[in-house]
């Protein structure tokens, strides 16, 4: 059987793009605040539901719905940090306390979402029935849909924009400074608190965008984000915690490993359920061999 590798690589790009958009906020907040925010999964879910709701209620198209989801979820992300984690951190909470609190917050958000919107899956195709997102083409031997192309475009645009923000802008430099040495950043007159707030806002907003893409590609239900959390953590760990460039490389490595993994698993007559095991494996191997992840490749000097 001849495997259509072009399609497999393209599928890997789709998977990787989704993981990248979802994991950027996770890695940046992890780096800045010093704990893994498990409730990040719920920002993904919430973003999808907000976009769906404004599309259903006010007839917003995909671009506007995406902007509303970004802003609303960003604010929720900021409020979660300001209302829960900052308060806990001020009282001397350790990484364990903060992590457990984030798991608890995730549960609260997930089941609130379930109570508000119900557990029956929702489909974006029902609110945007005539959208050009759904049309498909064949480019050579590769089957694509506009949605998949937009997803990959969004990931590339995100990578480029974030690069310029981090390198050229004041806030970007402040984020990097705070991430690598908070005391020194504070001493240099950087308002650390504000940097962290902005990062939480951005991170949650980007998670919302991932949620809208995932929702449009599959379906929306209260577990949408949670279903993706494991590969996203693999991306964060492999890329190096808090390292944006590492996350870009890691997202596409995990995407490639999963999709090539499916080809290999099928050839061996195994279930493709184990594709999630590939993300696990990457996570464990990185932790054992190079806990700092790919970050070492992107460190200067």
């Amino acid at each position: 059987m001849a495997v259509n590798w072009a399609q497999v690589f393209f599928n890997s790009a789709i998977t990787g793009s989704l993981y990248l958009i979802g994991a950027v906020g996770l890695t940046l907040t992890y780096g800045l605040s010093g704990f893994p925010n498990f409730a990040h999964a719920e920002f993904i879910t919430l973003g999808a539901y907000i976009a769906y709701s404004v599309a259903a209620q006010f007839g917003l198209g995909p671009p506007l719905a995406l902007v509303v989801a970004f802003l609303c979820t960003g604010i929720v992300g900021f409020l979660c940090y300001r209302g829960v984690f900052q308060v806990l951190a001020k009282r001397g909470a350790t990484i364990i306390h903060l992590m457990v609190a984030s798991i608890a917050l995730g549960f609260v958000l997930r089941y609130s979402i379930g109570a508000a919107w119900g557990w029956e899956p929702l489909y974006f195709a029902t609110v945007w029935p005539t959208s050009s997102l759904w049309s498909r083409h064949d480019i050579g031997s590769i089957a694509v849909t506009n949605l998949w192309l937009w997803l990959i475009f969004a990931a590339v645009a995100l990578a480029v924009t974030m690069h310029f923000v981090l390198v050229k802008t004041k806030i970007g430099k402040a984020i990097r400074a705070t991430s690598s040495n908070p005391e020194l950043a504070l001493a240099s007159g950087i308002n650390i608190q504000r940097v962290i707030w902005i990062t939480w806002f951005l991170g949650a907003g980007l998670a919302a965008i991932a949620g809208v893409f995932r929702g449009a590609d599959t379906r929306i239900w209260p577990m949408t984000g949670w279903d993706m959390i494991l590969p996203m953590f693999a991306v964060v760990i492999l890329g190096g915690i808090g390292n944006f460039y590492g996350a870009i490389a890691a997202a596409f490595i995990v995407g490639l490993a999963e999709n090539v993994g499916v080809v290999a698993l099928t050839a061996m007559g195994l279930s493709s359920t184990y594709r999630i095991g590939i993300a696990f494996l990457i996570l464990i191997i990185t932790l054992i061999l190079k806990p700092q992840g790919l970050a070492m490749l992107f460190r200067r000097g």
Partner: protein
Amino acid sequence: MVKKLLLVLAIIGLLIPLGACGPAPVEPETIKIGCLLDTTGGLGPMGVRILDGARLAVDEINAAGGVLGKQVELVEEDGNTDAATGFDGVKKMVEINGVQVIAGPMITGASLLSIPYASEHKIPLITPSATGIPLSEMEGTEWYFRTCLRDDAQGLVLADVIMDKGYNKLATMVLDNTYGKGLETAIIEGLNALGWEGEQVVSIHYAEAALDYRTELQQIKDANPDAVFASTYCDDGIIVFKQASDLGLDGMAWLGCDGNYGSGLFEDPKSAEFMEKAIVAGTRTVGAGDVYEHFKAAYQDKYGEAPQVYCDTMYDAVWAAAKAIEAAGVYDGEAIRVALTGLEFDGATGPIAFNELGDRTAGTFEIWNVVEDPTTETGYVNAEIEIITWSMEE
């Protein structure tokens, strides 16, 4: 240190459920029939409708005077399409509600966990929809009855369809669980028994929650089969069909089964369109005869839609439980089980009798496909192609 340890032990002690010594009411006010269906999770849309079938049966039983002179009460638990949650529901009903017979569990996974428990606590289970063959091979299967037909029955019918249509290169895209893999095995064994000369070119066992099936489906496309057999549930089936459509697999002939029968699959327009175009035949068990006509009309009347897959077997399961309690004369699990083994009556799904394994001895299947129907909410509907009678002697 010792104090701390004692505290921890005390907390653990509090957490251990005092279930084993739960109440077993001798003279209940009502006759309770347990009902374990998956009204949320992957099979949620299907489970909600099956529950309607159970409620209809209870209403009719009560209207006819109830059982043992008392009204019947349906104790409802949700299994969330998850084996462990379903098993918890069974335990809760037995230990807290004191039920002596349960209609359910709906899925094979929850049944696997529940059968040893049911046999230990002497509670007969009657599933409307768990079709896995291994369930009849377990210890304690004499406590497990089914009003649906086993996978091997459906697999044989599907094998017949494949032989009839002359497909020689078969691909399978099945759920990675006892249901999906059981059906796949039954089809291949059925085909081999019929002297099939074709081959299975690719076999995909996919995860229900992955939702990214592009590379799996691409493997099928690359193998270029004559037909693809898909055993899916509802929510994951939508994603499989949607992505199959995007990847251009709609030119192949697809075969469905009871798991992807029903209007739930048409919630996403792309999935509905794909099924209308690609699915040449699917199977499911159906009812036939006067009782079925009565059931269908009553269900339509009460819920405003036609009964879907397994609504009729659930209706029969609740009726079987009620008739067995009446025949037993006492509300006691052991007596109910004995009564079930000798039970014979005309249900919505035809004549109901159980063999020594608790399985149906005969039944009918429908071959269906999907057609457009502008009068429905989604614009699509399942249509009957033909009805096939199956019995164990064959």
